[in-house]
């Protein structure tokens, strides 16, 4: 079973996680949280309280934009999609995290054996 990552680290990595998911397809909040949990084997989990302030912050920066859309059952959901600015942000963010893990690895040996 994957160990759950502490909320502080999860929050720090949240921007990258959300941008990566939205780069594939537009998603609504519940689905973003569900997919992050599923794809990381539960290691990264976003609650409503941690997800929406981050989404709104990213929306404010112009990285994502939301629009309401009704599904087949008639339930309204606010879908988020990546903007051009958000797409530009993704590559440097990935690079930043890669450098971070390399630095942490050389310092504390945290990569897999």
């Amino acid at each position, binding site marked *: 079973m994957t160990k759950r990552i502490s909320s502080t680290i999860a929050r720090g990595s949240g921007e990258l996680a959300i941008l990566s998911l939205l780069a594939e397809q537009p998603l609504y909040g519940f689905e973003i949280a569900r997919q992050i949990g599923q794809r990381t084997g539960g290691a990264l989990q976003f609650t409503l309280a941690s997800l*929406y302030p981050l989404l709104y912050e990213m929306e404010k920066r112009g990285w994502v934009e939301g629009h309401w859309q009704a599904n087949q059952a008639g339930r309204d959901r*606010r879908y988020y999609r990546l903007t051009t600015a958000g797409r530009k942000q993704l590559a440097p963010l990935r690079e930043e995290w890669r450098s971070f893990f390399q630095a942490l690895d050389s310092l504390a040996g945290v990569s897999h054996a």
Partner: protein
Amino acid sequence: MKPDWTELVRERLALPCTEDVVSELASHLEEIYADACARGTSDTDAIRIALEQVGDWQVLGGEIARTKSEEESMNDGTMNNRTKTVLLPAIAVLFGVGLMLLFVDRAAILPRVVWFVCIALLLCAAASEANRLNLRTKSLWLPGFVSLTAASVLMFAEEFILVHDPSFYFTDISLRPSHLISGLPRWFYIVWLLVQVPCGALGAFLSRRSGGTRVLRIVAGAFPALTMFFLCGLLIPISAFFEHNTFALSHPSGLALGVLIWAAVPAVAMLLGAAPFLKESTLPIA
């Protein structure tokens, strides 16, 4: 019974959030609830699972309000006009005037009035720039200092109205407990305690309005008492120790009584005032 999630979010956030935010959060909670029900979870547990996603509504509301208010005021990054053209110049002028008056007559009432007005304007300036403040500053420090200023102004007013005697030194009460049951000091203390109630209410109210948690509301409400505790319980004994003040050091009961009279009892009065603003709302069921 299925909860009315929209109404629940609107009530619990208790902030001027847009309907978009309320609808989106309600929709998210409804999905969690429906998901849990579909997995065979009981109705009560499904509601609990959904609500656990939020934890502290005040914190969430504060964070969303901060994000949204910054979004609305993303102008050129400068101070707003009222702060720049009215409040800061007024504070600067009054500060200079207050200093001059102190040199002219140290015992006069006017410098104290100028000082209070100066602090009030400073707090107004901070409130005007609230969008730039973080949640802790908005929900703890600002309400706390407003409460402290209100308590100081009311004490000054009380001294001015009740006492009229420049030789009266109110902290003598803690060194002479017999004063508490006779004459002017007794009335002074009773009235002083009564005015702490609205001060506590004011601090807790402002903290709640800014999205403060229950703990922050309690601290903001009791802020003047905490200041007095710092003064009577820590600062005075420590300075007495380092200054070899034999009188203060040989009267530890006076210091303890000072903490009780000027910090502990007023804290209770302030918390009484703060109490109505500490309640969480209840769960509405549709």
